[in-house]
């Protein structure tokens, strides 16, 4: 049994500790999905979408971590961290920002049109149209 967490075998604690970032990734994906599905407010849905995307970004960054490595500079000794995943995530963050901007613009328009941000109310109003 481990001393850090009483009652739990060492193997399990090691497993969780070494893969903690990936567990958080899937936690974020789950929270994001639940927020998108479970909440009626459009702004909360957009927040859920952002959480979902952040989970994906964390996966890339966690996978790119190299223990004891240096930035890829000629003045530093090897081993080096590959800059490629970080560049990919910068691109993906920019994509996410533009998506959020478009979605919030649409939310403003929906509010001007229907006077509410709740999905069930908008649906009722549209069913009456």
């Amino acid at each position, binding site marked *: 049994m481990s001393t850090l967490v009483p009652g739990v075998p060492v193997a399990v604690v090691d497993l969780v500790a070494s893969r903690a970032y990936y567990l958080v990734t899937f936690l974020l994906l789950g929270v994001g*999905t639940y927020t*998108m599905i479970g909440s009626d407010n*459009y702004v909360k*849905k*957009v927040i859920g*979408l952002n959480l*979902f*995307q952040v989970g*994906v970004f964390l*996966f*890339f960054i966690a*996978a790119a971590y190299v223990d004891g490595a240096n930035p890829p500079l000629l003045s530093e000794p090897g081993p080096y961290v590959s800059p*490629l*995943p970080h560049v*990919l995530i910068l*691109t*993906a963050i920019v*994509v996410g920002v*533009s*998506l959020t901007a*478009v*979605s919030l613009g*649409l*939310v403003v*328009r*929906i509010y001007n*049109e*229907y006077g509410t941000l709740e999905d069930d109310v*908008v649906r009722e109003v*549209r069913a009456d*149209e």
Partner: protein
Amino acid sequence: MNELPALLVALPIVGSVLAFLAGLVRSKSGWAIAVATLAVQLPGAAILAERAFTDGPVSYVVGGFTAPYGIELVVDGLSATMVVLVSVVSLGILAYARVAGPRSNPFYATYLLLVTGLTGVSVTGDVFNMYVFLEILGLAAYALVASGERGESAVAGLKYLIVGTVGASLFLLGVGYAFVATGTLNMADMSAELAAVGYTSPLVQTAFGLLVVGLFVKVAVFPLHTWQPTAYAGAPDTVSGLVAALVSTVAAYALVRIVYTVFTVEFLVANPLARQLLVAAAVVSIVVGSALAVAQTDLKRMLAYSSVSQFGLVVGAVAVTTETALTGAAIHLVGHAVMKGGLFLAVGLVAASTGTRLIAGYDGLAHRLPGTARAVAVLALAMVGVPPAVGFVGKWYVALGAVEAQSWPLAIVIFASTLLTLAYFARLVERMYFREPPDWTADTVEAADAEAEAGDPVDVVTDGAKPQGVSLGMRATVVTAAVLAVLLGLGAFEYGQLIEPTVERLLS
């Protein structure tokens, strides 16, 4: 000219920026800039296609880096087909949009951005680059869908945005898994590395699953199709035609590219469960798409569910992995784009003349608008699969491929799908030709709307869309689509021979 693939992607971006900037100086100039840009894009696409079909795949690495460190653009026969299809359809819809569509400069800037995304997905040979272009394409599509004047468009656009982004994020996660497994993003390099890692490794299997599910959302395969009817019905008619014709088509091309170029047929051989799941998704899409289409009263929603069914056919062809089926998939992608785009534009044409988008409002259309009714009938029968239209050829090749591969559930469902498609399209043709027109006309629509506002009960089959003028451009585009649907069917055999080396290379 080596840089042609990159130029074909860069040109619409430049056009898009020009259209937007010109709007600050002089409004309503967007249409002319879009026409000028696409008029240059089309010959470029034709030259690229000619080179890809005669000399083999055209390859260009952006920035002069060597592959696999740089982003490689690879154009083979299938990519070239998509690039030409995108240019032709987007230029044709511009002829329709001059009178019918939204006229603002930002609209045309977004239109050209959509063309950029579509061309980019078609020519890229790098998995992350494909994600970026899928997102550009998606963003432009969400904005275009939301560009209608009604509140319905904004809600439809937001729903499309949320579902589409989840799909693209799953695709990105799949790219992440594949990158962790192989260390490279170049498609050709990745396929070699994935083979080295082993196709039964859970990492590779998960990557496949995530990439395919992400693309299923974009292609709108059941049960990930829910965004499609809302988006197509809520968008302006021009945009429905453009998005229905091109966005899911290019997403299906991306699916073919991922499954065949990155994962190769050996992956499906090593993982029979993956193939079975693809076939199951195809079969369910075909059946449920048609069943839901029959139940619709709004014509645009019916056409959207019909798309779900037709793309189920393409996914089935991808799952079956025979040469005939893949040729059929390519033919069907092109044919469906022309037919579905033509049908959506015809719906817009009828709405502009009579004010209705409901199926019940199409009664006796043959008496009121004979030319349009004829075009709709030709397109509808082409979609059902009446020879020699292109809808028949594509379906026939895919069914033949399914029989060759002894995938009996798929083959039976494809043959049955003709009956199912007939169920909802024959209704339409029958209403147009064999029923009396209702007592209302365009004038009474306005009168009826005024009465409805005054509170009197009204017995009019319309959804309140105000009729506007119909231009020659709108009619010409719809008729051209109908004519092309038949001509492409006649030329499909030659195209099959043209694309044979590409298909062989995909399957090797």
